[in-house]
């Protein structure tokens, strides 16, 4: 049998290996930043979750307390954005998309609490996080439409929970507002042509949140506790 063979130029595999290694070191660099982001997001959400046991009048204390962490979170996203933009966006977007959704949810929830049921648009969230949104004309880090919509669904889940807890706190007005808010968002999702993907699966859950909120409204109305409008 022949021994000396020249079928494979070793450079081929050396080049492939260096490409694989390069991608791996990029992933590692991003992972470090994401860990930091994750910690800050969790901390901010832990603070914001006090909203469930804080009367509406004092909700400012909760959002105020979360502000510092949210600022840190925004700084970390700036770092992520800078590192991530070195590579084609969608090549690695799977690494951080979950974390960007969580960060986006944090902003949406804080905004909703602070501004009495206001929904930040994707552009407003982008301004707060200091990242572009829905980029189409250039390849760089940004917040995608999908990430924003998934974060919005998380907000709905959280508000359904808040609706019941408001009643416990003796607040009968906010459940009415939450009920309307969720219905309005649901109407929005209703006009989207969703494929069989994660967005579809998660948005299917909104109707159960509507039911939960309507149940609260029903209970209050039945007992004449609902505020007269």
């Amino acid at each position: 049998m022949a021994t000396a063979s020249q079928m494979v130029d070793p450079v081929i595999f050396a080049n492939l290996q260096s490409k694989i290694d390069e991608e791996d070191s990029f992933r590692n660099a991003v992972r470090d930043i994401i860990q930091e982001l994750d910690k800050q997001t969790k901390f901010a959400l832990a603070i914001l979750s006090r909203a469930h046991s804080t009367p509406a009048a004092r909700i400012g204390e909760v959002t105020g307390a979360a502000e510092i962490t949210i600022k840190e979170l925004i700084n970390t996203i700036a770092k992520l954005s800078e590192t991530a933009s070195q590579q084609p966006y969608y090549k690695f977007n799977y690494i951080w998309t979950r974390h960007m959704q969580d960060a986006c949810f944090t902003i949406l929830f804080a905004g909703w609490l602070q501004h009495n049921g206001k929904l930040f648009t994707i552009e407003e969230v982008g301004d707060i996080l200091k990242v572009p949104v829905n980029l189409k004309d250039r390849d760089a880090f940004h917040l995608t439409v999908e990430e924003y919509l998934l974060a919005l669904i998380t907000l709905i889940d959280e508000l359904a929970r808040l609706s019941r807890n408001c009643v416990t706190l003796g607040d009968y007005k906010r459940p009415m507002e939450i009920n309307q808010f969720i219905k309005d968002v649901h109407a929005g999702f209703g006009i989207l042509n969703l494929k069989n993907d994660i967005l579809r699966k998660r948005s299917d859950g909104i109707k159960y949140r509507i039911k939960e909120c309507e149940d609260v409204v029903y209970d209050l109305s039945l007992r004449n506790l609902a505020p007269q409008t």
Partner: protein
Amino acid sequence: MTLTGNKRTAEEAFMAQPKTMSPFLPIFETFRSELDEHHDRRERIIKASRDITAASKKIIFSLQRVRTLNDPFPAQVAKDTKKHYDTIRDRYSSISRDLQGINSFRYQFQITPGNQEFVEAITFQHYLSHQMLMTHEEAQKELDKLTGGGERVILTAEDFLLGIFDMTGELMRFAITTMATTGQLPGAEKGPGHHTVLSDLRELRTQLEQVNVHEGGRFKKDFSSKMEVMRTCVEKVEGALYGQVVRGAERPKGWVPDLNGGRREEAEAY
């Protein structure tokens, strides 16, 4: 409460309420058109990828009728493959616009099956003509030729490597069929450096086994399963050669060794 409910009651309730339209509808309209665009692109790419895969398979099928290395292809083979390359060119051109700029890697998951099969076809063809492994850059150039060089479809290192794995299966098939019909392992006399398909397969195996794929990457799983299939392929050719050496003299003319459905085994490994 049921959301569907009685239709009339729901309608009546709707009419009775002086309900204002959801204030969020305008922003959702923007999202709708964004998502529609995305889904349309995705669909186009999935379809093209499937066609590219099918055409590449047909090319490989034609190439498997070749019996010698380093020779010009029989006219019929050249004619057949040309037709399929035209299909591939057409499909790549139809989607290259969808794979530019921000979207260059967005549909990687959808396009990679087509890319891999394409790599398998062109590297196999290159091997039959030159008995050499085509480089990643050359493969990209072949693809660029098809897309006209303007809007490039990127062939990633992963596409290329996974395509090479599949190509080893074709080398096995080629080696065994040729041995069965001519009684000889192809290569040897004519090839540069006098190497046979088997020594080439072994060399490829050594190289592939040395590739270090890191944990946490998305392609680790595909890589590992294809590695197993590739090893089996090399060993099948070794087994066939062993059989020929040991029992070769007793072999009746025209006897074909059992290929044991190399393709089927490959499918099982996934």
